[in-house]
């Protein structure tokens, strides 16, 4: 291995090799060998038609039950993700911004986030955050996302509008400071202003040490969150990889041309 290749490998945040996944309950193969590497500091986008396996990929990486890995591997900074529980993956630095954030009646947003932040810290052997420090930090970060004090007090996502839910996802991301962020159709259900706000929140978190995987149907989100690499996923595989121009091509011509090209 050359010196530059080693350096590049060390910079790899998320490495997925030949990942094959089926549904646990039925004989249905969804991912048929996904290869994908996201480097620290880079933003990768995955686009693809409905049913191509994009959301499944995000769920399998974050540890949702109901899937069976039948082949391949997925690592975060060299650690085998697939062996870990969902909470262990989170503590390792993996974050999934949900397409449909879950409403949790009776659990205050603040309580939820503080429990999450401190559970992760505890799992990493770090000191828990004091109530005062937490409050100071969440207030500052919420303000940037235009999340008011009332939204912080209310039960998690209950009665939130689509835009508020997505902003709340980004707030969680900002508080948890993960190494690898997966955004699953974060643009769905957002109007232009909300999309701008969410994108600004994501862009503010872009840094040298952090990788992003942005899953989206549409190019428009990528106008705001500019990707370094764009992948096209179809039928459980990455079928094409290119630069930002690939997203524009999809936007212009749809997926049909690309799928025909590789067929």
């Amino acid at each position, binding site marked *: 291995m050359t010196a530059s290749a080693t350096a590049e490998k060390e910079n790899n945040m998320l490495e997925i090799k030949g990942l094959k996944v089926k549904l646990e309950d039925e004989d249905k193969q969804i991912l048929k060998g996904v290869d994908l590497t996201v480097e620290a500091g880079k933003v990768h986008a995955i686009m693809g038609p409905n049913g191509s396996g994009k959301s499944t990929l995000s769920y399998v990486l974050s540890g949702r039950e109901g899937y069976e890995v039948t082949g391949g591997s997925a690592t975060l900074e060299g650690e085998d993700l697939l062996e870990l529980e969902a909470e262990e993956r989170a503590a390792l630095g993996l974050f999934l911004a949900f397409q449909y954030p879950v409403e949790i009646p009776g659990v205050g947003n603040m309580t939820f986030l503080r429990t999450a932040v401190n559970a992760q810290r505890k799992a990493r052997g770090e000191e828990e955050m004091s109530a005062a420090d937490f409050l100071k930090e969440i207030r500052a970060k919420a303000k940037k996302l235009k999340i008011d004090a009332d939204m912080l007090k209310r039960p998690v996502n209950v009665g939130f509008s689509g835009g508020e839910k997505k902003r709340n996802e980004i707030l969680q991301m900002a508080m*948890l400071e993960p190494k690898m962020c997966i955004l699953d159709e974060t643009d769905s259900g957002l109007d232009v202003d909300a999309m701008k706000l969410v994108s600004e929140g994501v862009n503010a978190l872009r840094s040298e040490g952090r990788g992003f995987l942005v899953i989206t149907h549409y190019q428009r989100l990528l106008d705001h969150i500019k990707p370094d690499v764009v992948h096209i996923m179809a039928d459980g595989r990455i079928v094409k990889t290119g630069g930002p121009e690939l997203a524009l091509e999809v936007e212009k011509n749809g997926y049909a041309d690309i799928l025909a090209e590789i067929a």
Partner: protein
Amino acid sequence: MSLLQAKQEATSALLDGVSIADGASWITALRQDALARVRSMGLPSRRDEYWKYTRPETLTQQEVPAAAAFNHGEAPVFDEVDRLKVVFVDGVFDAAASDDLSGEAMRIERLADVAEADIHWAKDLYGALEAKGQSPVERPLAAFNTALASDGVVIRVTGQVARPVSLIYKHVDSASDAVLHHVIKVEEGGALTLLENGPAAARFNEVLEVDIADGAAFHHVRAQGRDHERRAATHMFARLGAESTFKSFTLTVNGVLTRNECVIELTGDDAVAHVAGACVGDGDFHHDDTVFVTHDAVNCESRQVYKKVLRNGATGVFQGKILVKPDAQKTDGYQISQSLLLDDDSQFLAKPELEIYADDVACSHGSTTGAIDEDMLFYLRARGVPAPIATDLLTLAFLAEAVDEIEDEGLAGIILARLEGWLERRRG
């Protein structure tokens, strides 16, 4: 065996040789009447529809099933509340541990004391709400209590009482069989908060009769003790006057058998009655909430909110009824009973009933049984919250909806902290 035979046998076991001697006291005739009532009804048996889900044998048999007192090492639940303490140990009044019974805007007496007198205001109330509550459903254990209660408190509230009255029930003797009967009269414009806590006895039979006059208010928060083997049959009878308020909440953790009956009658217009309960059961635990709300006046509101968390084979029962009489127009009745089953071994049996004879009413009821929501659980875990903590967060959130029914935020906070601590310790 015929139903009658079965009932008579159950009755004779506990009532054999029981009689109430004639005397000059105001209470004698009331006790004799109650004894006659329970003899004619018979004690509950499994064949009674009303006892279909809860086996009454251990409550009616002569021998008290042993129940060890359990030292959980926690500070008693209402310790931090400024209150007037009345302590009973295995059903026996403990003067040394109790506060001086005199208080502003009220008069508290012991039943055992006032029962000695020739005449007392409680004559019009003692056993009266219980007797009325025998129809349309019989409640023999309550009549048994009226006949044979050894003590209790008799409280007359004449104004707004700031300091809660706190009944503390200690349990020491593993074979104790306590029968307490409390009578509370809240006069027009008066207000009282009653707290109850503690396991009381190996077997506890309690009746609480509350008469709430026009514009008066009664708040009640109860935490039934954590002794694993204790048994309790409690009855709360409340009569509400116009524009009066009744709010009651019960927390039940542990106890091998608990049957809490609540019988509410809204007799004055614009009255409000809320009754709620949160219960956490583990293993050999049976908890029964039986509620009967009668709307007999215009524009009254009633609300029942019951939540049970069950695991390791625990059983929860809810029988809740709203009866709206023909003239009780503009009734707003609500009832919800929900259980969270943490495993496949536990069960929840619910019988919600509405019986409505007025045409301009809004009544709704719902009952659900479910497991922890997988989507919520995954969401929490994906944020780094370990599964056991996430499960407890969701469990607490489920129970919090019942605890929220407590009007006083301080008391609600105490109950929530109790539950939180309990879940945390159980997690280890």
